[in-house]
């Protein structure tokens, strides 16, 4: 049981990593792209904007926490 828990903790750390917000942004970006396309609006640029926006935000948060004493 302990080994299974440790394995799932590893998988979470491996996929989600240091910032869970990046994973959430990707899921939302994909869902939005799919929903818009289903409604007749094929927008390829939604996922790149959401992904790089989330990465920029995540990097900014890292910089702010570095500046904090």
């Amino acid at each position, binding site marked *: 049981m302990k080994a299974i828990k440790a394995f799932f903790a590893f998988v979470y750390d491996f996929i*989600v990593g240091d910032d869970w917000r990046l994973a959430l942004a990707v899921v939302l970006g994909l869902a939005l792209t*799919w929903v818009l396309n289903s409604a007749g609006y094929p927008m390829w640029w939604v*996922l790149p904007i959401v992904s790089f926006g989330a990465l920029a935000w995540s990097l900014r948060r890292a910089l702010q926490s570095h500046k904090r004493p």
Partner: protein
Amino acid sequence: MNGSGWGLVIATFLASAVETVEAFTIVLAVGITRGWKSALLGVGAALALLVALVVLIGPGLLAIPINTLRLVVGGLLLIFGLQWLRKAILRASGLKAIHDEVAIFAREAADLREHGPVVPGAFDAYGFSLAFKGVFLEGFEVIFIVLTFGAIHQSVALAAVGALLAVIAVIVIGFIVRAPLSRVPENLLKFIVGIVATTFGIFWGVEGAGVDWPGNDLAIVGILAFTLLFSLAAVAYLKAKVEAHSAVVSA
């Protein structure tokens, strides 16, 4: 082999090299401090389990409809790529410590020595479990890369060739130098793999959601170029901010 095939082999080679270097450091520490018998048994057991996982999961992945596969694998690859890219950007800009194999080796070896003496010739469960865990967890990451890239290209075998070449290269170099592979530019490799994984993650994710890219496959070049420029700009910006902050603090 076409350009896409070469790209597949190179991507899996680079990603696998990073993980194999990390696994090699752990096995080397176990082998030197606790004995090679238990270390190599741990490596063998982990490899057997990894091969079993590939055999179980691989064919199932190829049976999934390509658009569903692109959506799920593209999403996973994008999350994975963004995490690696974030880590590599933070390391390159000085916001996060560079991965130091020599320091990791010294820490692992000290921990292992503290765990009590090893009876010569006897099976050492602690050394075995550490080697097993190190190889299995790092190897799992290699499998993830091989299966995701391979399944989308409909060629797990070609992706496995890249990974296998990386494992062989690291082991051969490791046995020649007999020391942690500290000269491998791990952060640079992580940076490249992060860019490649992010690029293909975005490309396949959008295609999996049912949207066609303008220019079809040529869009990959555009996404790759943008990801590279974004990353280099982020490193330059963060580096300047860190240096300015250090100057203020030390003044």
